[in-house]
């Protein structure tokens, strides 16, 4: 979700195999650099492989360009990597959030073959995406300050995953402003 000169990105914490929950502390949001985060929902193995490939590509980019990648550029990179596997895709839906030029918040999501969807307010992905669309649409207001943005995204996340049996077991929220990154764990319905 986008706020006033900041953004927040949140995920649930469940790692499961169909009906069985394996872990309740699985990380789905990864930091690419101080002002760029990617959340990867979907198949855990593909999320891990894709993350490793993206870190590799970004480190090479940093070495060559001597600067961090802009979020828009990174989104194009992710889209390209996903479309490369068009006929044998990674079963992941990424959510990318970052602060671009002049710390302007940028968010986008993609399907598993790299179709970018840019938005000005919020983007969602995962098994609870329909619930998330509804919750975010009703709770979102433009230009929220970081504290209010944290509250809003947390409530939207928790209420949506409570309606989905495959999501939940807590929440993980990052709120990123130009000066700091705040990471918080949410305790929701642990079921």
């Amino acid at each position: 979700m986008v706020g006033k000169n900041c953004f927040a990105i949140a995920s649930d914490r469940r790692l499961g195999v169909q009906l069985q929950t394996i872990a309740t502390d699985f990380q789905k949001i990864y930091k690419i650099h101080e002002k760029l985060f990617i959340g990867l929902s979907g198949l855990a193995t593909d999320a891990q492989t894709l993350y490793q490939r993206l870190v590799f590509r970004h480190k090479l980019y940093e070495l060559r360009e001597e600067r961090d990648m802009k979020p828009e550029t990174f989104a194009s990179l992710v889209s390209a990597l996903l479309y490369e596997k068009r006929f044998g895709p990674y079963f992941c839906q990424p959510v990318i959030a970052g602060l671009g030029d002049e710390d302007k918040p940028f968010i986008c999501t993609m399907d598993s073959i790299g179709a970018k969807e840019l938005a000005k307010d919020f983007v969602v992905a995962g098994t609870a995406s329909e619930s998330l669309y509804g919750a975010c649409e009703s709770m979102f207001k433009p230009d929220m300050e970081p504290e209010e943005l944290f509250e809003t995204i947390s409530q939207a996340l928790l209420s949506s995953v409570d309606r989905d049996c495959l999501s939940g077991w807590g929440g993980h929220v990052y709120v990123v402003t130009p000066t700091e990154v705040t990471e918080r764990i949410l305790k929701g319905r642990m079921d």
Partner: protein
Amino acid sequence: MESVFGLVGKDFAIVAADSSAVHSILVHKTNEDKIMILDSHKLMGASGETGDRAQFTEYIQKNVALYQFRNGIPLTTAAAANFTRGELATALRKNPYMVNIIMAGYDKDIGPSIYFIDYIASLHKLDKAAFGYGSYFALSMMDRHYRKDMIVEEAIDLVDKIIMEIRSRLVVAPPNFVIKIVDKDGAREYAWRESIKDAPVPGV
């Protein structure tokens, strides 16, 4: 169906696996060792397709040894787990290994750890993990009785409770189990839990 489970204790990690080698309705043997000792301080319990299990665990064991020969120092448990995940992930879209792995290790500065790696190469560090039909019973028993920092006796007691549960509640329950432990003194076989003994094989 094959069961493997593992848990982390105060300064050790335990992995237990059933020891039946089954082909369709026939039980070939009941003392198959499915927990490979990778090096002095690492264990890998594996379940799944028999050929893949035997080949893949041996492949990982030899590569772990190769690293130590080449570089003079052993891999950490995390590094070995990530290497294993990498091998499974690379093979996944070509010729997947149908092997589920619980890797346990002891590192001097980190202590004991176990890693859950399923057959499609999802990796996660955990305190307690289980695979197979037995996992339904093992995970529930561990959720109830497991505490952080258990001593060996308490952990073995929990493992025995789990084995009892699997034996009594699973319809095609494996009769025998092997338990291995890894701690600061190294990785070694701890015990067998046998309710059926195979006829001893005559020496050649």
